[in-house]
């Protein structure tokens, strides 16, 4: 077989997958960037070049800023909390512990359930007066809270659901990493009489660093695309108190049908994801240091 026919064969093997990859990832990303400088076509009026006008609209849009701030808080809460919980989970089920099978199953369960379905159950937990959380609060003498209806509580309430959903998923990555660590570390630590706490911080934690970076990047991406439960629980309300960027993008694009403004919002989201991507690229390069 000649060299060039092997080349052609390779391209032919790649072609079908690349039609879809380019058609639904690269093309729309570039086209969105172009659309963000155009006006929304309405009826007989075609799209026109409007420069940075859409971006100016965005900067003056209070709902956009509200969604950005909400999303930043959402990320700042879900990322560290779900990661910390996932490390504990992984350490526990990696050791000898009573009911290990049950624990591992319980932690992982939220990962396989549809967010849209479990969010329905969480609504009940948050219901004023007879919801489960409020029943417990009232038992200890705290008055019933309207978790999803109170602007100061709504964001926190949907954040907790996200942490619950994600921690078990991240646990898997830590568990996989822990199981690849050589048992001799543990033996050496035991001979030296290290406490579990010392063993974790000085040995396991540094060795888990590549996993932590991988999970961190995933958590960051998820923080900007996990919006299913918003649709069920609050619809972004009350008064946009729990609106996240992707949710607002959906509203602009498919409720107000303003495609150029939605394109600007997409560009913002893409930039955030690009930062996450670069972070993974540069931080994971240092992985060799730990191996």
């Amino acid at each position: 077989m000649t060299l060039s026919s092997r080349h052609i064969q390779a391209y032919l093997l790649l072609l079908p997958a690349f039609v879809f990859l380019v058609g639904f990832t690269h093309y729309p990303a570039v086209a969105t960037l172009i659309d963000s400088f155009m006006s929304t076509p309405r009826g007989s009026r075609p799209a026109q070049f409007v420069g940075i006008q859409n971006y100016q609209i965005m900067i003056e849009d209070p709902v956009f800023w509200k969604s950005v701030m909400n999303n930043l808080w959402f990320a700042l809460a879900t990322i560290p909390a779900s990661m910390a919980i996932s490390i504990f989970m992984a350490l526990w089920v990696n050791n000898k512990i009573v009911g290990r099978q049950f624990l591992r199953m319980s932690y992982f369960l939220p990962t396989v359930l549809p967010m849209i379905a479990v969010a329905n159950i969480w609504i009940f937990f948050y219901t004023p007066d007879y919801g489960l959380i409020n029943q417990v609060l009232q038992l200890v003498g705290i008055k019933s809270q309207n978790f999803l209806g109170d602007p100061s509580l709504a964001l926190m309430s949907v954040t907790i659901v996200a942490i619950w959903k994600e921690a078990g998923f991240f646990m898997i990555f830590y568990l996989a990493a822990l199981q690849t660590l050589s048992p001799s570390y543990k033996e050496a630590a035991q001979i030296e009489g290290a406490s579990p706490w010392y063993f974790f911080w000085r040995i396991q934690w540094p060795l888990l660093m590549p996993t932590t970076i991988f999970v961190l990047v995933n958590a960051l991406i998820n923080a900007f695309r996990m919006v299913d439960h918003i649709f069920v629980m609050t619809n972004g309300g009350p008064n946009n108190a729990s609106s996240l960027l992707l949710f607002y993008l959906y509203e602009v694009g498919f409720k107000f049908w303003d495609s150029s403004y939605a394109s600007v919002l997409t560009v913002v989201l893409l930039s955030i994801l690009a930062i996450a991507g670069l972070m993974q690229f540069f931080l994971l390069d240092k992985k060799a240091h730990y191996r």
Partner: protein
Amino acid sequence: MSASTLNQPNNPLDNTGWLATLGAWVLAIVWVMPLLYAFWAAFHASEYATEFSLTAPLTLDNFATAWHAAPFPQYFLNTIFLVFMILGMQLVLCTLAAYAFARYSFAGSSLLFSLMLVQLMVMPEILIVKNYQTLSSLGFVDTLFGIGLPYFASAFAIFLLRQTFKSIPKELVEAAQMEGANTLQILWHVYIPLAKPTYLAFALVSISHHWNNFLWPLVVSNSVESRPLTVGLQVFSSGDQGIDWSIISAATLLTSAPLLVGFLIFQRQFVQSFMRAGIK
């Protein structure tokens, strides 16, 4: 690793203290609570939805009511069709692409590989506005095929399979070549059988992901014929059902039941699949 640790004397660092054990159990109970509650509400009449009493009579009425209150049988068929259509397309397209990346050297291979990896960061659901326009110009809005289309090529699958294919010894391939097998025969008879665990891992991840997917199907589907379960459940529970928790819980359990049952039966495989998929 278990074989090597079994023979060794007990290491205190392997054991968990009572405080940690307590913490682990409290966390686990909090974690399964929503599901436990859903079971409680779904199997009891609605007057017991907020009242917990051991003597409350069990009933299946909520399931029957939910099942007939919305076109759930149709939604089920839609989701099953959608999930397997996506998986089938992914397996074919991504196997071919992964094979090219693993065993061919060609001009621009690393550039194409990087371009492919972009999809790991930029999922189709981020680009809903443009992808919706693409879909409507192709005439696939409000069809199951349209919902599946953006997912047919999966960077994740290509990446996983390429890693697996690369680890297959060249000697096996050379032996097959000696016997006169052509490229596709080698792929079919050598690579694919040896990559079975990877295929299983990817299949479980893909099925559970697309069974649960919501935002993109919500945008694309507009009728009972094209609505998957997740969107159907959302339409159902935000409709006039209001706040009958028992019926909503029953519908919620129905929606998640196949995944839940599958998970409980194949728990080990599920966890291992996600692990395998996570180790890069």
